[in-house]
């Protein structure tokens, strides 16, 4: 009985801590303004990024060489995105407010992916410029 109680409480706190941890990763990117070049390459036209753009942004990130160490963040946010998809599938139809909240969270995940892509593009441009400079 005690074990079941501990399991129930732990599962709930795990969910809350994990969601908050992902929020802290998302919030960190919110302050970053996407560059025009980054927007153009990733095909983002409006100020906010929609949740359904997340997968495409991940594909673009995979194509872009990694500047170092941000893969863990991509994985954590991807996991959170997947978790949100599961919640939407299970509970999204019950209450429209839940679906709205999930969509805004998925948009946050997509924004993180867009920021990471933007940083990678900027980093690669710098590397390319350096390489061209040394060749000349």
């Amino acid at each position, binding site marked *: 009985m005690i074990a*079941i109680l*501990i*399991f129930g409480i732990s599962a709930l706190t795990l969910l809350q801590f994990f969601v*908050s941890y992902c929020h802290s990763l998302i919030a960190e990117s919110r302050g970053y303004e996407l560059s025009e070049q980054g927007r153009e390459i990733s095909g983002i036209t409006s100020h906010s990024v929609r949740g359904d753009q997340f997968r495409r942004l991940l594909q673009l990130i995979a194509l872009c060489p990694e500047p170092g160490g941000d893969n863990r963040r991509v994985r954590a946010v991807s996991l959170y995105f997947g978790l949100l998809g599961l919640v939407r599938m299970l509970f999204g139809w019950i209450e429209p407010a839940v679906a709205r909240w999930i969509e805004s969270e998925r948009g*946050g995940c997509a924004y993180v992916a867009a920021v990471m892509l933007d940083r990678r593009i900027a980093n690669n441009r710098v590397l390319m410029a350096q390489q061209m400079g040394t060749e000349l």
Partner: protein
Amino acid sequence: MGPVDYLLLLADLLVEICCVVCLLKKRAFSQHFTIVLYLCASIAIGIGRYGVIAAMGFSTDAYKYFYYYSDALLTICLYFILMNLYAHVFSEMGISKFVRGGAMLLLAGTAGISYYMVATSTDKLVTHFVYELSQNLYFVGVLLTYLLWGAMMKLRENRTRLMQLVLAMGVYFSAFAGSYALGNVYPNLEVWRYVCHLMVMWLPISWAYTFLKVPEDARMATARVLAPNR
């Protein structure tokens, strides 16, 4: 014990060594001494576990004793980290001494309650005691982390590094408390062996990320963590 177990054991060790290197590289040794202490203890215990497996075998009682007692020891090291985080959060209030005393009392209380629970049960096995102790220690860890997180929200703590460290601890404690409780309900669930190895990697990976990517002076509004799309 198959090649997957050995591979995961090795991966745990490598991740922990990398995290220690990151901490030393970022000169966080003195400020977060307890984290380095935990990682070093975990590396030493990982090597010890490998030694016991090689000498005695995986399915022996000796390995079980070593595994559970070393796990309880690591959980106590995690308590020290938690105390350190409490001290950081309440540094301006000057109540670190009370926090330390309270945490020690809680630790002793948890061990006492676990012993009492096993002593009153029909099978008074020492392995059962240490399993119960680990489960309870992790659960008390969950409660303490939750309390700390609540206090941070109330005090509008805005240090990003501190927030991520506390949240990572919360995820780890909750995952292990849940997994131990599930192990109590379903003792023969083999899949948890692999899940545990993966969960062990969570703390060093998240710490390494925090120390490498989040500058010490980075600040974040508390409300953003509660609702990032505001």
